[in-house]
């Protein structure tokens, strides 16, 4: 099937404004009659729930943590982009749009990206009004830094805790609506099913993580804003609870999964240190503003103390290969370059999977106190984890799974192919194409939540009768029974392996075979291993405890069960996409100097997969992509 993204046509500069005018409205008195479920209260869901509640809709919101303030958006460090052009360095809405389309390696829908760039400026204003303490200069004006893939300074930040401050802003707006009783918050709930009635999304089933009860909720529309899925790699920069569960379960109810093979491996993470590790820690990309990346030129120098290696024996490979962007080359490119150096035997650290990020030049230029002021908390975190002082000795970094560009397919309204099911933030596929630029995810989450969904959902609401289907409908009961059945099944296996062991096994297959570089052979190997691990899981996993209680092993078990299915669709997507683009690098498709080679003739489309049963080949639907404003071109950062 050919999918229609329903993007407005005509001049892109006015596309969102024209479209906003064309959409239907719901009058204030009627809004009260509608109920909207918002699953996930990170930046995207928190902003959406607060804004929709304020507009007058009845909102019920859900998250798995004990408070909306703890969503993983909290961990974002570096910053958020906007086209304010405060430094007058040549930025504009058009340039942010252009950079994002190009950065995504021409695999995103132009109109969606335009809208994102356009509303980016409103986001900064909104956050300032909420009391977000962005960094300021001595005159009291907002300060900016640079991020990868851009030659302007457009990134706003709050020390190394930008995500925390933005999330606390959204949380405060949400708290205000909870107080006003327009939003009802259900924390410690995990959505385990989407209720679809006659092809339309009408509710969810969740587990109350404290009591173990399976509950169902109805709504006239359901919004998923449940974050990213890179924990499929086991080790990643995501939080322990991040999962594909919500979007995967929606996918099993008919929602299409778009571009699941587009995953971002972030170049600057603390290298893995042993096999007992549970997660990887990011060192913000902003560090590349002042840090220089290098490895020894000679393999025999790799064990030397880095400070003993003279400048002429160091290979500042990003500066060498990409002179115009240097250390600020985009993430996919910087990650692959790091892998290349290590594959070439010039990696550093115990495992030899590491490269240096060196601040010496900057410390000499601006002094250590200035560097500490910019990134102090990151240096502290680095030292806690590695026991090394990053001011005195270059940090060691290595790429790690970080972000999912892919996600549920949505049209221009952020609505999936299931009417009434909307998807926001990292959980959808929309604006980042095959590679996301730094500081653009926070922008997208808040754009979707504050400035897109409040408009686009009205168009849908105007077409449905409020409260027509409630949890009296038999589908709700069935959904609850299905979830109970699955939980009982998980608890009854009582095998020999722990959930953690099996997750590690899956993760190592995904990292080796479906990670930074993918080949036909590696992908086929993964497609053989994933079902084997899945089978072993359902025969031999040991989930302790009972269903009617707080049971964290059970939570981990269903998340892994979903990853074990999701991994297969992700690998299938990677195998079918016979080109390299952004974060998806197929070794068969590269230029002589190892750069990604796109195939626009055959793959200039969004690949959206329809689930057909576990272990059954999913069906591919395509949404062709047109580039009318940014010309399709080889993406070069040289």
């Amino acid at each position, binding site marked *: 099937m050919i999918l229609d993204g329903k993007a407005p046509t005509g001049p892109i500069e006015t596309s969102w404004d024209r479209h906003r005018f064309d959409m239907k409205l719901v009058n204030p008195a009627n809004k009260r009659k509608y109920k909207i479920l918002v699953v996930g209260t990170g930046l995207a869901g928190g902003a959406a729930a607060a804004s929709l509640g304020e507009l007058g809709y009845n909102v019920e919101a859900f998250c798995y943590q004990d408070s909306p303030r703890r969503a993983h958006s*909290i961990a974002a460090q570096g910053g958020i982009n906007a086209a304010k052009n405060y430094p007058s360095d040549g930025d504009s809405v058009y340039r942010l749009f252009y950079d994002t389309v190009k950065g995504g390696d021409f695999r995103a829908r132009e109109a969606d990206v335009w809208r994102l760039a356009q509303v980016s400026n409103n986001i900064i204003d909104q956050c300032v*009004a909420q009391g977000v303490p*962005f960094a*300021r200069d001595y005159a*009291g004006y907002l300060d900016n830094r640079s991020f990868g893939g851009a030659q302007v300074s457009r990134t706003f930040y709050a020390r190394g805790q930008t995500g925390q401050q933005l999330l*606390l802003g959204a949380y405060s707006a949400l*708290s205000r609506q909870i107080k006003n009783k327009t939003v009802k918050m259900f924390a410690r709930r995990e959505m385990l099913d989407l209720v679809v009635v006659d092809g339309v999304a009408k509710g969810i089933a969740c587990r109350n993580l404290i009591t173990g009860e399976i509950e169902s909720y109805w709504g006239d529309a359901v919004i998923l804003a449940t974050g990213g899925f890179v924990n499929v790699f086991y080790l990643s920069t995501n939080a322990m609870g991040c999962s594909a569960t919500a979007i995967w379960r929606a996918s099993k109810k008919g929602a299409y999964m778009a571009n699941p093979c587009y995953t971002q491996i972030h170049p600057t993470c603390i290298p893995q240190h042993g096999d007992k590790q549970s997660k990887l820690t990011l060192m913000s990309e902003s560090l590349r503003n002042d840090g220089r990346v290098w490895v020894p030129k000679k393999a025999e120098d790799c064990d030397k103390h880095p400070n003993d290696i003279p400048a002429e024996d160091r290979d500042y490979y990003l500066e060498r290969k990409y002179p115009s962007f240097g250390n600020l080359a985009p993430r996919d490119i910087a990650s692959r370059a790091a892998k290349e150096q290590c594959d070439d035997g010039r990696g550093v650290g115990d495992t030899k999977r590491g490269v240096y990020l060196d601040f010496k030049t900057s410390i000499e230029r601006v002094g250590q106190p200035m560097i500490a002021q910019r990134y102090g908390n990151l240096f*502290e975190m680095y030292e806690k984890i590695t026991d090394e002082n990053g001011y005195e000795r270059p940090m060691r970094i290595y790429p790690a799974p970080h972000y999912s560009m892919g996600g549920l397919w949505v049209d221009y309204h952020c609505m999936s192919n299931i009417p009434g099911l909307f998807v926001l933030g990292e959980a959808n596929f929309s604006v980042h194409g095959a590679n996301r630029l730094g500081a653009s995810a926070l922008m997208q989450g808040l754009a979707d939540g504050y400035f897109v969904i409040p408009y686009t959902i009205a168009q849908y609401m105007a077409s449905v009768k409020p409260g027509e289907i409630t949890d009296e409908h038999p589908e709700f009961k069935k959904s609850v029974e299905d979830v109970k059945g699955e939980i009982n099944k998980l608890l009854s296996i009582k095998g020999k392996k722990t959930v953690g062991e099996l997750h590690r096994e899956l993760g190592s297959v995904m990292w080796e075979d479906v990670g930074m570089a993918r080949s036909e052979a590696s992908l086929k190997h993964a497609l053989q291993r994933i079902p084997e691990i899945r089978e072993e899981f359902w025969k031999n996993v040991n989930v*302790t405890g009972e269903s009617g209680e707080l049971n964290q092993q059970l939570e981990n078990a269903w998340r892994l069960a979903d990853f074990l299915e999701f991994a297969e669709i992700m690998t299938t997507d990677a195998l079918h996409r016979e080109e390299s683009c952004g974060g998806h690098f197929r070794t068969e498709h590269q230029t002589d100097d190892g750069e990604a080679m796109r195939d626009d003739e055959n793959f200039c489309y969004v690949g959206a997969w329809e689930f057909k049963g576990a272990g059954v080949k999913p069906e591919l639907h395509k949404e062709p992509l047109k580039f009318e404003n940014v010309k399709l071109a080889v993406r070069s950062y040289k």
Partner: protein
Amino acid sequence: MNLTLHVWRQKGPQAKGKLETYQAKNVSPDQSFLEMLDEVNDDLIKSGKDPIAFDHDCREGICGMCSQVINGRPHGHEERTTVCQLHMRQFNDGDEIFVEPWRAKAFPIQKDLIVDRSSLDAIMQSGGYTSCHTGGVPDGNTFPIPKPVADYAMDAAECIGCGACIAACPNSSAMLYTSAKVAQLAALPQGKPEARKRVKAMTEALLAEGFGNCTNHYECEAACPKGISVKFIAKLNREYLKSMMPSSLGE
């Protein structure tokens, strides 16, 4: 290294809890405290026992989910560190370690080391925000904010809402937590219009939720993984006094 753990185990909110003893063997100094507990849990699962339940999520010291009292100190003895960032190199072979949940009237235990902290959300809901609408706000540079003021607000805003300050306080007071938000917003031009109302509402909510009064022990600052300063409590007190005085409008 090998360690002996004494861990608080409690089946549910109503159940009686007690300390159970476990051995943690071959612990690597590079592991985090939670990774060490993961391994203890793996052993428990393998021997058919219920693993220890504890809250955690980001494991990078920012979400505020992890919450354990280690050897009598919230988040353990290392300064400015959450449990998830506490590394085993801080311990020695043969150590005995006591692991308990946050203890406070306003934080009922749900299971083992997990407590209910919804009272903290309730304080925020009482007024920890500016009442701006989505959209319709001025440009972010309309009100210049002197850098020292922005920095002061940020120092306060760093709170991760974990509740260690309350667990450390002999009165189980939530004063540091509340004052951080009051101070952040009172310092900024965007928060000033509602400052009087906010400080009253939030201090009332704090008492209504069952937290105690502040009697200046300052254990909170010492326990805070983000080093939030008690100077914000003084600021809250000043703001509170201000709110009691008649305003220039004669309210």
